């Protein structure tokens, strides 16, 4: 999926395209939940789309991704077909995981989405293993592991980054710093002023970079640099993408703990809105073309929802398949 060697207006458009798809699916699903038509727990990626889009564009399908419960943007950016994602949200037999994993455990090896984890920080050690396998096999793949700012305070983060640096693994630690972990602020949980500066603790093999994750050019360039570095065998990067969580920790969370001004500013700087403006300004696409793009995604989503809706629930026997019970 790698689109270009340097940033350009056509890359900008590609970023917007992926980001918009994410926003459309995110809004569609949140709409169902908030209207009572889908009763699931969901952690919306609203506001973090540019980060994911820039990640997805810089990876091949065969590259690996390990993401988290707040993973819809990552999964779509990496290329899981919308139908499989939506059907999984709908808990249907046709979902990516036959309805057994759900949003928090979405897996689709064909797209390189290897693990989605609900335990904060736990994906990083596993991602190392994927990267280690690539190193052993020399298959030239890169692994990206997404996590939040809060996750940078858990032990698994530290063990994983030390090992990755030590073994010079082809991996990118993509911290999506959205300023909150549930309702706790960054500053109340994290002693360092940036997550990226924690790279210092892992020596010269580990690079730490902190960028504006909502700015397409900065984000794409940083991601590209990190992926190229990993693929070249030069070692891992701790890439901190600064962003914001616009729809609360979970769908339905009105975020009363976020100061009004902070939220207002974030909404005013909604990256989908700003990126759309930038695309139009760059001349890469017209307003009309972007409207059409959105309509096409909405149609695609509607199709996926229809498919999911009409799909059968998993057979009850699934409870005892794909697991080696104690018998």
């Amino acid at each position, binding site marked *: 999926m790698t689109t270009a060697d340097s940033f350009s207006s056509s890359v900008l458009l590609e970023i917007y395209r992926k980001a918009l798809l994410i926003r459309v699916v995110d809004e569609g699903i949140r709409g169902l939940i908030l209207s009572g038509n889908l*009763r*699931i*727990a969901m952690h919306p990626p609203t506001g973090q789309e540019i980060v994911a889009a820039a990640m997805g564009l810089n990876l091949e399908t065969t590259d690996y991704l390990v993401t988290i419960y707040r993973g819809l943007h990552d999964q779509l950016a990496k290329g899981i077909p919308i139908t499989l994602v939506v059907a*999984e949200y709908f*808990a*249907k037999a046709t979902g990516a*995981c036959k*309805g*057994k*994993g*759900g949003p*928090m*455990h979405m897996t689709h090896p064909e797209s390189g989405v290897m693990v989605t*984890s*609900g*335990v*904060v*920080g736990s994906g990083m050690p596993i991602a190392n293993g994927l990267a280690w396998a690539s190193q052993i096999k020399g298959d030239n793949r890169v692994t990206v592991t997404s996590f939040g700012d*809060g*996750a940078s*305070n*858990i*032990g*698994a983060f530290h063990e994983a980054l030390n090992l990755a640096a030590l073994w010079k693994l082809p991996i990118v630690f993509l911290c999506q710093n959205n300023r909150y*972990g*549930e*309702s*706790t602020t960054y500053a*109340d*949980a*994290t002693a360092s002023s940036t997550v990226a500066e924690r790279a210092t603790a892992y020596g010269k093999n580990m690079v730490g970079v902190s960028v504006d994750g909502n700015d397409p050019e900065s984000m794409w360039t940083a991601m590209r640099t990190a992926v190229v570095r990993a693929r070249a065998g030069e070692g891992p990067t701790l890439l901190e993408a600064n962003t914001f969580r616009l729809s609360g920790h979970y769908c339905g969370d009105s975020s*009363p*703990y976020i100061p009004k001004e902070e939220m207002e500013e974030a909404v005013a700087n909604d990256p989908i809105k700003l990126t759309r403006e930038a695309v139009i300004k760059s001349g890469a696409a017209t307003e009309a073309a972007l409207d059409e793009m959105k309509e096409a995604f909405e149609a695609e989503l509607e199709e996926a929802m229809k498919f999911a809706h009409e799909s059968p*629930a*998993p057979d*009850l026997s*699934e*409870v*005892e398949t794909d*697991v080696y*019970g*104690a*018998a």
Partner: protein
Amino acid sequence: MSEQSTINFTQAYALALDEAMAADPTVVLLGEDIGDKEGGGVFKVTAGLSTKYGDVRVRTTPISEQAIAGAAIGASLAGMRPVAEIMFMNFMTVAMDQIVNHAAKLRFMSGGATSVPITLRTRSGAGSGNGGQHSDMLEAWFAHVPGIKVVIPSSPADAVGLLRACIEDDDPCLFIEDGLTRTVKGPAPGPNHILPLGKAHVEREGSDVSVISYGRPLQEIRKLADQFAGEGVSVEIVDIRTVSPLDTDTIVTSVCKTGRAIVAHEAVRSFGAGAEIAARIQEHAFSSLKAPVKRVASKDSTVPFAHSLELEFLYKASDIEAAVRQTLDGM
């Protein structure tokens, strides 16, 4: 219940914490998002407490379960009585070293020179659509670790009395809250209601069959007992309250009387707490048993996401009913 005021489980936990903090200045709370700045906790159990008792005594932590458990242990060695919240029971896995190798053992390994009076509050249970990493009932693990007590309440009043007991206890206690039934109500206890740990509660006397359980299944067992009474079958209900240490005497006395026993829990069947209860019953009441001890539990699998599968995974009230009928038939 008409005259008496009622509270739900969430209110019960909150009440116990509030009473304990008021009664003893060494009681301090720590956990993720528990302060009022953060909305008083994900499950709102601690809402209001940081405002009432101050940020020093109610401390929001980073997402660092090892650091949370360790801080609780260390503070307890220095004379505090910390109550740590581990948001979901599956996240206890992150802190197992602290809990098992330290909290449970320091008193023994120090030859009694120190003790670890901490309470770990956690929450779990399937049925809410949270899937494989947020729903496990792991009480049997902790019960297999000498030195730590394991407590699961089956009513709001018991929740108050048992949580207070955990906090007052000089050993580490694991207090397990059920996610699904958090708004279920029951009679409110009087002030400073404290129950003994390690004592089972025969909450309904009966003569035909003993149903032994703890936590959520009691909600269904109570109804079943009424139903069976209508059929002329007399069910004795034993709520063990404390999974460990287990009150063998009360259980065995009940089964010696009824000659039949059903053990029910939500955790997966194999190697669960029900195995220990069944094993002890047949050890101590062998000649009284008219039928094998039957276990009702969830299936030996991972908790699935799809609600239909989740219900299929879970033990069912009908399983308990069927077990009672089978045991009456001597099966």
